[in-house]
């Protein structure tokens, strides 16, 4: 009774009101607000990386190697005397670029394949599932290393690896949702009118599948950032001297017994970024679509 009553009531509020209240509810949730602030800081840092510090990320200063934080170098310098703060800001750019490209491409491909697998004939579903499961059964980093051995390291390969390994994840989510929708009466109703499968997917499935998928994809940003910095840490990501958090961490690891600052400077922004996106994503998910909580 209670659920029924409240359902009926929330239903009456218009959808624009709902969107505004989602933002205000995000701000009222302390963790959600923290996430929003961290993500905003990251975006500002990445966008204005050129203007926030007086240094270039590639400018060497051999006299000031491995310096501890000071007023002129807020986070110190690395083994080549480059300003760590500058490199961290530029590293954020790389991380966000990789996340934006790989997630959006994987999302689109995953969406299409998932809907095809879920709505298409049984044999197609079985074939696609087999491929998805096979790709998923490679441990991501190990798969990435194998591929990069063949092609040589580059930012493009990092993005490719993330796309290839993310597609099955999104496709499986979309497939599950599509299968659930497929048996719903409104889809039967559309089919009974003779609606083409393309129109059913476009008009009836897409709007119902996209929303939850976007929330899940936003929660994947930390994972992608982690893979990028992990590969860069291994020297398999961006090529030096391009700045990346992983590269800074790798430098820090090499000199860990000399100075702790490089490891700290490379790791803290990575941690703050993943925490920020996670807190924000979780809060948004709880506000917009609490049912998603169930599937991890």
């Amino acid at each position, binding site marked *: 009774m209670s659920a029924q009553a409240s359902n009926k009531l929330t239903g009456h509020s218009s959808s624009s009101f709902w969107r505004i209240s989602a933002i205000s509810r995000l701000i009222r949730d302390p963790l959600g607000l923290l996430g929003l602030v961290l993500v905003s800081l990251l975006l500002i840092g990445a966008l204005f990386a050129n203007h926030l510090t007086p240094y270039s990320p590639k400018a060497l200063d051999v006299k000031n190697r491995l310096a501890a934080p000071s007023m002129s170098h807020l986070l110190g310098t690395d083994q080549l005397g480059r300003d760590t703060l500058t490199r961290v800001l530029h590293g954020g750019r790389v991380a966000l670029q990789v996340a934006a490209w790989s997630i959006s491409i994987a999302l689109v491909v995953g969406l299409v394949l998932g809907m095809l697998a879920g709505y298409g004939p049984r044999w197609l579903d079985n074939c696609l599932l087999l491929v998805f499961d096979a790709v998923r059964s490679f441990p991501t980093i190990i798969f990435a290393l194998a591929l990069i051995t063949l092609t040589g390291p580059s930012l493009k390969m990092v993005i490719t690896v993330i796309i290839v390994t993310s597609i099955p994840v999104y496709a499986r989510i979309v497939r599950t949702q599509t299968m659930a929708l497929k048996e719903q*009466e*409104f889809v039967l109703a*559309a089919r009974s009118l003779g609606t083409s499968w393309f129109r059913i997917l476009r008009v*009836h499935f897409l709007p119902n599948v996209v929303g939850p998928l976007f929330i899940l994809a936003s929660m994947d940003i930390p994972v992608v950032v982690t893979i990028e910095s992990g590969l860069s840490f291994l020297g398999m990501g961006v090529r030096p001297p391009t700045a990346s958090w992983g590269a800074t961490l790798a430098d820090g690891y090499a000199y860990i017994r000399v100075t702790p600052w490089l490891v700290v400077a490379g790791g803290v922004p990575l941690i703050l970024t993943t925490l920020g996106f996670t807190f924000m994503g979780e809060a948004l998910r709880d506000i917009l679509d609490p049912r998603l909580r169930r599937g991890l």
Partner: protein
Amino acid sequence: MPELLEVEKLRMQFRTEAGFGARLLNHEDGWIDAVLDVSFKMTTGQTMALVGESGSGKTTLGRAIIGLLRPQEGSIKFQGTELVGLGDRDYKPYRRNIGMMFQDPVASLSPRRSVRAQILEPFQVHKYKEQNMDMEVKRLMSVVGLPERFEGRFPHELSGGQARRVGVARALALSPKIIIADEPTAGLDVSVQGEVLNLMRGLQSQFSISYLVITHNLPVVRHTSDRIAIMYLGKFVEQGSTQSIFDSPAHPYTQALLGAVPKPDPKQRRKIVSIEGEVPSLRLRPDGCDFHPRCKYAQARCRSESPGETKIGSEHTVRCHFPISG
């Protein structure tokens, strides 16, 4: 003059979920008959009710007639044209002749489309362009008694009764000759189910529509339908005019089903239960007559021989070796 709808010897099979082991142990062939040997006719302006318990195959039969499922055997003729075996493209023109109202009024509407979009859907799918669509939507909404301000609402903003009206409007959109109504009053309170039924009745006299109503609600059927078919394990065990079925049920199952409906009258309390046991799984269809394990009157012949349909009145047939007379 061909019949409006003529179904003959229809058979619908499904693959069982039964695993390899179950097939070995129970000697199952992996297929079950959800609808078996079903034949009937519908005429214009008539209401026919398919009555049965869960697992009787009534919903499957309805979905076969609307073309959502393909029958394995038999024929479905619409005004003389065979629909079984038609490809999607050839089938499509016939779809506008048969509309459907689904069981769950809210779930049968696409969740992120407005009432207007839902009612327009049939026209868009069938590429109606010449007409003035705004007028059509307004006309249909007024026909089913929905105020115009509902045009922009979404399914979750509607009550069960309102959503039901949108469903009726959509089913009516292409001026079908037949509407299949799957449990049209399911989930509605007694005080509002009359509204939906009265609306359907009004539309029938206005547009001379035929209804095929799928239901388990016998008291409602008695008032609203002209003919009744009683289904058990996918077969019609009895069909006839509403009056003959209610006045002189010939099949023991029909009799039991009528007897199981409680009377809202404390003086008519029943001392005995009219029927024991429950509907068996389709996977374990009994030998002989499907109903014999639960039948009070079962005899040796019922255990071995499956009865065919016998005509016992002008429009009254029964599938029983020993029909009850009088």
